[in-house]
């Protein structure tokens, strides 16, 4: 039976003022990217599907702040937050949502397939659970090549019901690979609550089945996620093998898009309770109370990001569409 690791007892309990500001900025960037994307979709400007990440920002920010640029991540259908936090630019992300040739996938991929190798972003993924074995492969490559980067795979509670997840977890464990498994447990798989798709309360218990240590954190507390991530990443980087972090979090919008709950699969009270623990509000209140940042400094982050986003959307809208003559581009290499 694998151990449950407690982050509270570790030396890295304290998070520096610099890291708090870093986490704040990453979360604001995700929040604004997402809310603006949601507006664009409601205005009918974006084709395809849009799975918004709003509410879960503390997880992407907390984990990514523990990574280097050359560390790799694999993401999910809800991948914008991971991409933004890993440093993928607003311009290429919005351009991709618009289907422009300047987009992250040259307009071929859309929301569910955003990637950026220069940032170690090995892709959002339209197939639930599919990113897990890919991260295991990336971690394998790192060790094979004698490099010390790690791979992090993000997945939801629902994804841990897929065979690929289990095979990936066992493979990572038995090969002792530098992979960090990050479960963003928002309590739902589409419209099915966790209690309707598994009998476990803690997804982290699944790690134990493969001999993988795990830790459960408050996914609305970016500092707590960050501490756990630093530990898991250091562990993996040092050669001690994989570890799982389960972050309990919540998505504020619907499974897909912004509105349209045709079926009340969660109560207004439940949504309100989680929104009262908005991860950005929580961090801002604490940062001001602890004298880490003034309100004006925090507001400045929002304003700068807003400006950057407005510019990126304008860039996307002004970008050319792909040329249908290039339909077969990149189907094969060479």
């Amino acid at each position, binding site marked *: 039976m694998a151990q449950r690791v407690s982050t509270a007892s570790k030396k890295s309990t304290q998070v520096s003022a610099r890291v708090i500001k870093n986490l704040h900025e990453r979360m604001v960037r995700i929040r604004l990217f997402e809310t603006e994307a949601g507006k664009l979709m409601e205005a009918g400007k974006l*084709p*395809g*599907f849009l799975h918004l990440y709003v509410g879960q920002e503390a997880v992407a920010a907390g984990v990514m702040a523990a990574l280097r640029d050359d560390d790799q991540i694999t993401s999910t259908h809800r991948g914008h937050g991971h991409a933004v936090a890993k440093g993928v630019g607003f311009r290429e992300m919005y351009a*991709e949502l618009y*289907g*422009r*040739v300047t987009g992250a*996938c040259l*307009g*071929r*991929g*859309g*929301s*569910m*397939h955003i990637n950026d190798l220069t940032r170690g972003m090995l892709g959002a*993924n*339209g*197939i*639930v*659970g*599919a990113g897990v074995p890919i991260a295991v492969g990336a971690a394998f490559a790192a060790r094979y090549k004698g490099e010390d980067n790690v791979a992090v795979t993000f997945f939801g509670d*629902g*994804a841990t*019901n*897929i*065979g*690929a997840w289990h095979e990936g977890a066992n493979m990572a464990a038995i090969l002792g690979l530098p992979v960090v498994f990050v479960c963003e447990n928002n309590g739902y*798989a*589409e*419209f*099915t609550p966790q209690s*309707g*798709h*598994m009998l476990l309360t803690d997804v982290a218990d699944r790690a134990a089945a493969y001999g993988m240590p795990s830790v459960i954190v408050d996914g609305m507390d970016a500092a707590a996620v960050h501490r756990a991530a630093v530990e898991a990443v250091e562990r993996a980087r040092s050669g001690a093998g994989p570890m799982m972090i389960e972050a309990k979090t919540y998505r504020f919008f619907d499974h897909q898009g912004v509105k349209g709950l045709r*079926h009340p*699969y969660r109560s207004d009270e439940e949504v309100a309770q989680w929104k009262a623990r908005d991860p950005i509000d929580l961090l801002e209140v604490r940062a001001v109370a602890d004298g880490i940042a003034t309100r004006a400094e925090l507001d400045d982050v929002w304003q700068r990001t807003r400006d950057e986003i407005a510019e990126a959307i304008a860039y996307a809208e002004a970008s050319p*569409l*792909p040329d*249908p003559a290039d*339909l*077969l581009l990149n*189907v094969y290499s060479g």
Partner: protein
Amino acid sequence: MTTTTEAPALTPVAAPRKLSYVKAFNEGLAQAMREDENVFVAGEDVAGYGGVFRMFDNLLDEFGPRRMIDTPISEAALVGLGVGAAARGLRPVVDLMFMDFIGVCLDQIVNQAAKMKYMFGGALSVPLTITTASGAGLGAAAQHSQSLEAWLAHVPGLKVVMPSDAYTAKGLTVSAIRDDNPVVIMLNKVLLGSTSEVPEEIYGIPLGQAHTARHGSDVTVIALGRMVGEALAAAEELAAEGVEIEVIDPRSVQPLDTETMFASVRRTNRVLVVHEAVTFGGLGAEIAAQIQDSVFDYLDAPVLRIGAPFSPVPFSPVLENAYVPDRARIAQGCRRLLERS
């Protein structure tokens, strides 16, 4: 050539009533569930939510949680559940939401469901129905837009149907559920809201019986799924030019009713096959080969195929529109065929 199943008589249309494709599917499924207590439905968000495409709306209310089952995101286990239950005499309907997801459960479909009867020496049958939504046109990109009928139609033991309108959606659904073999129903995402006349009573459309959607003397267009509507639109366009197109909707691609196609070719002497899937290795190749095998002497021109280019489905609407065959390309193909000899 494949054999056709025996055709139950079609109930004639009593009073014309229009229904959407997705509602027609839903009605056929509900009626089949009323008809046979052994029919149950399992899939992700099919019960409480009614399915992401509203395919299963209201069925939980009528049939309850014993027969409408929400499952975890575990497609291999989901299809396997259907195989095992079918082997023990139930008639499962399992839903795969997007056709692309068959990638994660292909073994259960191809190696288990399809072969079980054969490997058991005929001692059992697998009356499993798999429902799924296929096709491009919604900007759903490379992992949510494919038409993979050629993969499945290639596997002995499986049947594959592609409803082209609301009427066929209901009739093929009923027949698939009544059929004693594993049948995959490929609903087309773009057609979900489209309406046509649908009889209220339960009726089946025989699997393996093609339908001549339009009679014409100059070119036979054999169109799959959503392409039937595009072909009919192309036929209107060409009729204005004095060209009469015959449109054949195979409705089921495995088994495939080649006789109806051959008969048409003997009359028109020119054939165009059109499908949404990539042209290479698609059903167009199979249909063209069978036509050349059997009615070569009647052809005035080589069989022409229209399908998608050999690429994953692109996201950007400008690329996706260029990717999926449409009425203009079909009309153009017919003109090319008529220019020969």
